[in-house]
């Protein structure tokens, strides 16, 4: 019942309530933004386990620093920035080229055609491998644009980066991907 009531609250009300000591209010904020943050972290880290660790720590950091959130109406954007920074820190600390075992080809969605499934699975693997070889800033912009489907304006608000700079990052990411994928008929 408390949960249903909390869903009617604005972000700012939930932040205020959490700062007054309501764990349920903060839990509602977690539920509200966990999908967005997890999708981003998973695409950035390339591993579900690492993504969950990153998101858990980002939510904990947000909780500890909630009083410093200057615009509680946009607490989701603030949490996103914390997560995005955590992703980049994580990538910097990771050794090797960043290709994870989680990226290994699995069975693609069942189409009923084994050859097509194998081909699609291989394609996904190659795309994910190429994606994880992009510089972190490029990958971040590319994921936000093409996985999360955000506009450049929305991306700019979330990251605090200008639209032209983000456009440049996405364009470079596409060009690098094109090169990494060896043309593949994409240009």
């Amino acid at each position, binding site marked *: 019942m408390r949960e249903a009531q909390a869903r009617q609250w604005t972000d700012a009300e939930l932040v205020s309530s959490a700062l007054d000591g309501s764990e349920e209010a903060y839990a509602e904020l977690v*539920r509200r933004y966990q999908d967005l943050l997890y999708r981003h972290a998973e695409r950035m880290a390339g591993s579900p386990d690492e993504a969950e660790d990153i998101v858990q720590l980002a939510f904990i950091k947000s909780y500890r620093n909630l009083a410093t959130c200057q615009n509680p109406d946009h607490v989701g954007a603030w949490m996103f920035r914390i997560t995005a920074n955590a992703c980049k820190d994580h990538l910097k600390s990771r050794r090797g080229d960043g290709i994870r075992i989680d990226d290994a080809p699995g069975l693609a969605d069942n189409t009923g055609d084994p050859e097509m499934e194998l081909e699609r699975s291989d394609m996904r693997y190659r795309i994910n491998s190429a994606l994880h070889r992009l510089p972190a800033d490029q990958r971040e912009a590319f994921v936000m644009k093409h996985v999360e489907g955000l506009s450049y304006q929305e991306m700019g608000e979330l990251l605090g980066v200008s639209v032209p700079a983000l456009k440049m990052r996405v364009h470079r990411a596409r060009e690098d991907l094109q090169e990494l994928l060896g043309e593949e008929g994409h240009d």
Partner: protein
Amino acid sequence: MTEMDPRLHAYLDGELRLEDLPPELRGRAVGWDGLLDEVASSAPAGAPLGLDRRVMARIRAGSEPANRISKWCDWAVRPRAIRVSPLAGLAVAAALVLAVVRPWAGAPPPSLDTEVAGRVYVQFLVEAGAAESVHLAGDFSDWQPTISLEDYDGDGIWSGRVPLEPGVHEYMFVIDGSEWVPDPNAAGSRDDGFGRQNSLLAVSSVSGT
């Protein structure tokens, strides 16, 4: 780096329509659409089940970064999608059933103890050999993992007695302050609304009232 035609970028940025492109670029544009669809469709739809609860458990537990043992437990109980063929799936399922059921073959479900002032003491037992702490949380503790279980003899069996009102209760064990696991010996379970099963316990008055 291979530069792309700026009109292709404009198309992928949603600033141009396919028919606005010259014919020689349309094939590439369609190819990119397929690639981007593949990237988007391989992304997870959302957070794994129970992530919110794991976050809140860590916050309640002091939110320190997980140590090696708790990280292993975290990995072990975290729900995840595993893709296997049907035959391999059957083999894995059979192995899991053996691995999970055998150690528990002789373990008792929560046992009722004496009744005190309308409440009944219930003995909870759970095996968690690698754990550093085990707590109990349930509707009787407002889902706060505040009831500490103990492993007095170091045999990996954690236990504790809790006074409960007669009625049906839902509960879970919390391993190392962050891992919520159901009781494998519970009489029943109920969906918790987050994709996991709370364990069920029916407590009746010893006097039968």
